[in-house]
């Protein structure tokens, strides 16, 4: 992917992702080499303390790998992640643990994310015990505070319970409480509500928003459902096949979506209306491409109805700034080719 002017990364940004590549090696029966799964293939962005950023994309686009790398569960293959002044590629051992303790991780499956054989109290104590908070009183204090913040009260009743005794929404609150227990600076939430009921989703999303505001957290919020991001983030970027294909402030993206893929996502996320049953949605057919051998040129080109033959399927598109803070990775916005739009 062609380099372009990097946003001034280190001024005021809590998290800076610089040309990040995360490739997984495909082994062939022991020792052979069958290529790489290029899950993240050249991603850059910055995030300031107190801001929420949404990452939207379908399964297989690399968003989960991106998040796991940011958290420190994967190693970058190329490029750099700078978080609170620490460079991830140079962080090992105890420093890595400290790095991880500053990032809270909320997962998709609330029941799977909690060890079924531990009580809520034990679950919440674990991160603190591991990170050296030896005083039991101090730990209990933090637990009470955390549970109260996620509105799981009365605290004393919740503590001795096991995860299976709670509802899905309550379990997710425990997951959030656990993510907050070490007072992190960044919260990464990977599809935090997609396994919850519709009426509970909004409650949890509002809870996350409230925590973000009261703790001045930076939040990265991953989802495939565009309709939930509107109220909960300042910035949004759309990922496709390992790349960021559009980046903008929330209103900009919703009012002026540019990349054909973004347009398709918006078309597919229609609001409920009886009229929907009468019309066909204008969405591209097909599936996201393989990450081992992505298509030549623009990775979306096989499904794009605005594809410019000879251009989109040959050369990778440049990153174009179309308005303030709004970038898109598409030939259609290149002044030389914009005749097609």
């Amino acid at each position, binding site marked *: 992917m062609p380099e372009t002017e990097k946003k001034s990364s280190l001024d005021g940004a809590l998290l800076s992702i610089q040309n990040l590549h995360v490739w997984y090696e495909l082994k062939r029966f022991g020792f052979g080499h069958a290529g790489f799964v290029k899950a993240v293939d050249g991603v850059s962005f910055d995030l300031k303390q107190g801001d929420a950023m949404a990452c939207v994309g379908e399964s297989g686009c690399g968003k989960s790998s991106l998040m796991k790398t940011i958290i420190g569960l994967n190693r970058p293959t190329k490029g750099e992640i700078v978080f609170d002044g620490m460079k991830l590629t140079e962080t090992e051992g105890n420093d890595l643990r400290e790095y991880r303790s500053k990032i809270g991780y909320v997962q998709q499956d609330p029941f799977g994310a909690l060890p079924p054989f531990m009580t809520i109290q034990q679950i919440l104590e674990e991160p603190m015990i591991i990170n050296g908070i030896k005083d039991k009183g101090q730990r209990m204090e933090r637990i009470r505070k955390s549970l109260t913040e996620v509105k799981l009260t009365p605290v004393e009743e919740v503590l001795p319970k096991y995860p299976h005794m709670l509802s899905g929404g309550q379990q997710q609150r425990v997951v959030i409480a656990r993510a907050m227990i070490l007072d992190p600076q960044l919260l990464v939430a990977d599809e935090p509500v997609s396994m919850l009921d519709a*009426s509970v989703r909004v409650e949890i999303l509002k809870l996350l928003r409230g925590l973000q505001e009261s703790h001045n957290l930076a939040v990265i919020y991953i989802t*495939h459902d565009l*309709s939930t991001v509107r109220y909960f983030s300042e910035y949004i970027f759309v990922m496709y096949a390992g790349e960021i294909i559009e980046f903008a402030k929330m209103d900009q993206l919703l009012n002026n979506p540019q990349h054909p893929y973004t347009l398709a996502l918006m078309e597919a996320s*229609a*609001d409920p209306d009886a009229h929907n049953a009468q019309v066909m949605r204008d969405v591209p057919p097909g599936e996201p491409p393989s990450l081992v051998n992505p298509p030549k040129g623009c990775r979306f080109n096989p499904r794009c109805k605005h594809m410019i033959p000879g251009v989109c399927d040959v050369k990778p598109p440049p990153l174009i700034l179309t308005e303030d803070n709004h970038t898109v990775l598409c030939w259609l916005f290149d002044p030389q080719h914009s005749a097609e739009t």
Partner: protein
Amino acid sequence: MASKNGNLLEIKDLRLYFKTRSGIVQAVDKVDFNLERTHATVIIGESGCGKSSMAKAILRLLPRNVQTYDGKVYLDGEDIMRLNEEEYRSSVRWKRISMVPQAAMNALNPVLRIGDQVAEPAMVHLGLNKKEAMSQAAQMFEHVGVPTDFLYRYAFELSGGMRQRAALAMSLVTLPDLVILDEPTSALDVLTQANIMNLMKRVKGQMETSFILITHDIATSSELAESVAVMYAGQIVEVSDAYHFFKEPLHPYSRKLMASVPRLHAEVEPEFITGQPPSLVNPPQGCRFADRCSERFEKCDEEPPMVKIGNRNVKCWLHVDGVQNAGD
């Protein structure tokens, strides 16, 4: 034998209760429900409201711990509840009513080829031989947009969207009167969901099949619904045509449900519903939504009747004339 008013399916007083360790779960509690021919109805409800049990009750796919299963289910005027197991299996299940179960893509047998699985119902219920059944399957694949050479592939070779289409083909291969779809798109990506819903719209137009779509996703439901039924705590609380429902739902629960949908294109912040649905083991007396309802009043301690308003039905005291508080 057709029924008098052209309804394909008429359900009266359907009950399905399960025996569990914690008590008797009244999953489907005296439900009345009608479906017209070549019509698509959506049953909307959250998890635990009994909607999946309703699908199983209609198709008689009962688990072992059933305690009560009664009521009347008229398919084209004939009460299929009266049929015994064998008659039901050979004449109704998958011949006239079929189902695409939840997570259908995981319900495909991993050791059989897809084509064999899709062809099997045709062989069993239509009496076709293998060759004829496979060509019927191939036809279905064309309908649902799966390339025909996939007939010879295995489930793991297909993506999620393709598997869902294959499951849909399997449910259509016997050209049934009714297909029940239980959360057909919940595990799929948003673009794939849209594609599948497009597919359903096309199939519905081309074949004369009726659909019952069961989902908790209101946005998806609006893609196919001609009429909407809302289920709460084992009961149906509202039935309405799609246009009026999405414009203005009647039941307080329906209204709250609509308000909780985050909207992409409108400037309305979504609201959530406080509290939780009641347990189906000991459902509360009176209106089951009462303790989460912001409009409740004393009459709600009594179970409300199903009230007809135009051609809509609502199970709520607020819509019964003369019952509300003065000043309401």
